[in-house]
């Protein structure tokens, strides 16, 4: 771990050991944000005063001999769709700016704070999470720390870029069709989308509830595991949230890939993209000594079904505003939301039924393998404003196609970590490590082994 940018685990250790104060760590994070966020445009809100007050409280607890938690004094920030008490949740929109401040924190924000983490702000995103680029008409585009002329990916682009730039070591985001994994890949960091329903979504502004997940970004697998462990737990206020007991992942990391049956996703996941993304998958597969292929059937149809469900649920959520004030939407989302209002119920129900069929097929695959590898995005980060891109010689729209490899997998709620492949002189790429539902520990074990062996890493670019 780069000493200039220690990970959250190291920060918490030094604060708990009183080698540094929480106040100094949080103040340094706020100073980096003040100095550098004009370049990256990650933050929509910075909470300097409350963050320093919270940091002081951590320092006082340590001085009193109390244990402030596993993330003592670690600065974190959240996608601007998580409720923060006293702050209006924008969800990337102009319309929500008219709403009153949230009356309490989202459940996951509360859980991080209870573990000692210190909230420093809210992060930029595509409007209402409907996009893969974080080019927001109201709040501006976020810029990729590896190349400021390029997108961060989205919709949790601010969450990924804030980590990649070293502004904070932990962020939270949401993933409906790829919105954690796509920006993780394009910004060269780790991003975990847990199993659907594994983490409470209470207090988060949803987009398409059938498919919405919340998850975490970090620069190390141990941070991802620690944060995920802190966030786990049932929540009666989110009917989707599982009542399974938490299964801690951090203690499992040392086990690596030993004993796991790993395969590479073939077929749909091995075509239609730039050659470099398949080379990245091959690099991971080679390191794990994996050559077996599996075919996930009808993945292209799964992507289509996810598209239909998202269109319909997203449009329904915003129907009142689409009727009365469409001009206040971001032009990048407006016409898609309007078109989604027109989707026949028959299409929607068939897409939901297909989801059950497809889940059953993938369950069968997981009878024979424990882990599947696939690319995260079909290319590295496109330029800001780039409406079309070329994939394997074919010209396609940038926005919908960045999620071609993520969408068929979140569709059935599988736990996935996107791990970062750094390439000298080139932009980073991501590889998805995928497991059967509720097996977050397995994807984190494999990611941890790859990190230990230097295959994947998330250094802050110079």
């Amino acid at each position, binding site marked *: 771990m780069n000493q200039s940018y220690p990970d959250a685990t190291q920060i918490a250790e030094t604060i708990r050991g009183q080698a540094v104060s929480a106040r100094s760590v949080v103040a340094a994070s706020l100073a980096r944000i003040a100095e550098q966020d004009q370049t990256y445009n990650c933050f929509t809100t910075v909470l300097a005063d409350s963050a320093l007050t919270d940091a002081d409280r951590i320092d006082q607890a340590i001085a009193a001999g109390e244990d402030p938690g596993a993330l003592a004094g670690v600065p974190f920030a959240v996608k601007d769709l998580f409720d923060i008490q006293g702050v209006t949740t924008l969800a990337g929109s102009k319309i929500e700016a008219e709403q009153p401040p949230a009356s309490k924190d989202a459940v996951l924000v509360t859980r991080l704070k209870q573990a000692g983490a210190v909230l420093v702000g809210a992060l930029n995103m595509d409007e209402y999470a409907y996009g893969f680029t974080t080019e927001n008409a109201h709040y501006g585009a976020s810029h990729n720390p590896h190349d400021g002329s390029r997108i961060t990916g989205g919709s949790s682009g601010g969450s990924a870029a804030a980590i990649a730039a070293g502004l904070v070591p932990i962020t939270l985001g949401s993933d409906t069709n790829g919105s954690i994994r796509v920006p993780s890949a394009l910004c060269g960091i780790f991003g975990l989308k847990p199993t659907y*329903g594994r983490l409470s979504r209470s207090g988060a502004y949803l987009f398409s509830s059938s498919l919405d997940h919340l998850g975490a970004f970090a620069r190390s697998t141990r941070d991802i595991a620690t944060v995920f462990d802190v966030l786990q737990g049932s929540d009666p206020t989110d*009917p*989707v949230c599982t009542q399974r007991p938490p299964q801690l992942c951090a203690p499992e990391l040392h086990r690596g890939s030993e004993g796991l049956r790993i395969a590479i996703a073939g077929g749909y996941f091995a075509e239609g993209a730039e050659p470099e993304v398949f080379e990245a998958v091959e690099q991971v597969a080679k390191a794990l000594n994996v050559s077996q292929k599996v075919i996930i059937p*009808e993945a*292209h*149809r799964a992507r*289509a*079904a996810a*598209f*239909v469900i998202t*269109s319909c649920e997203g449009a329904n959520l915003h*129907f009142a505003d*689409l*009727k009365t004030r*469409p*001009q206040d939407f971001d*032009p990048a989302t*407006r*016409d*898609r939301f*309007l*078109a*989604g*209002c*027109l*989707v026949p119920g*028959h*299409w929607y*129900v*068939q*897409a*939901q*039924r*297909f*989801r*059950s*069929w497809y*889940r059953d097929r993938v369950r069968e695959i997981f009878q024979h393998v424990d882990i599947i590898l696939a690319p995260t995005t079909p290319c590295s980060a496109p330029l800001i404003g780039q409406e079309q891109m070329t994939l394997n010689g074919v010209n396609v729209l940038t926005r*919908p196609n960045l999620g071609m490899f993520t969408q068929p997998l979140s569709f059935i709620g599988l736990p996935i970590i996107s791990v970062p492949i750094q390439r000298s002189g080139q932009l980073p790429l991501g590889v998805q490590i995928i497991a059967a539902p509720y097996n977050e520990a397995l994807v984190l074990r494999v990611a941890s082994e790859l990190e230990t062996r230097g295959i994947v890493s998330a250094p802050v670019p110079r």
Partner: protein
Amino acid sequence: MTDHIDSAKCVDHIAAFIGLPLDPEHRPGVVTNFERIQAIAQLVMEFPLPDTIKAAPVFEP
């Protein structure tokens, strides 16, 4: 698959039916996106599903 003109008419009719005003400035983009959804939905609709396959909603009465 219907052609562009039919899609535009379809958009106008459904929008009117559900009480969704369409600004003339927004309408071409809506038609384009509706055609895109229509083409994508075709992939879902053409796939035969057994009657026994049900959606899996989360609803607790």
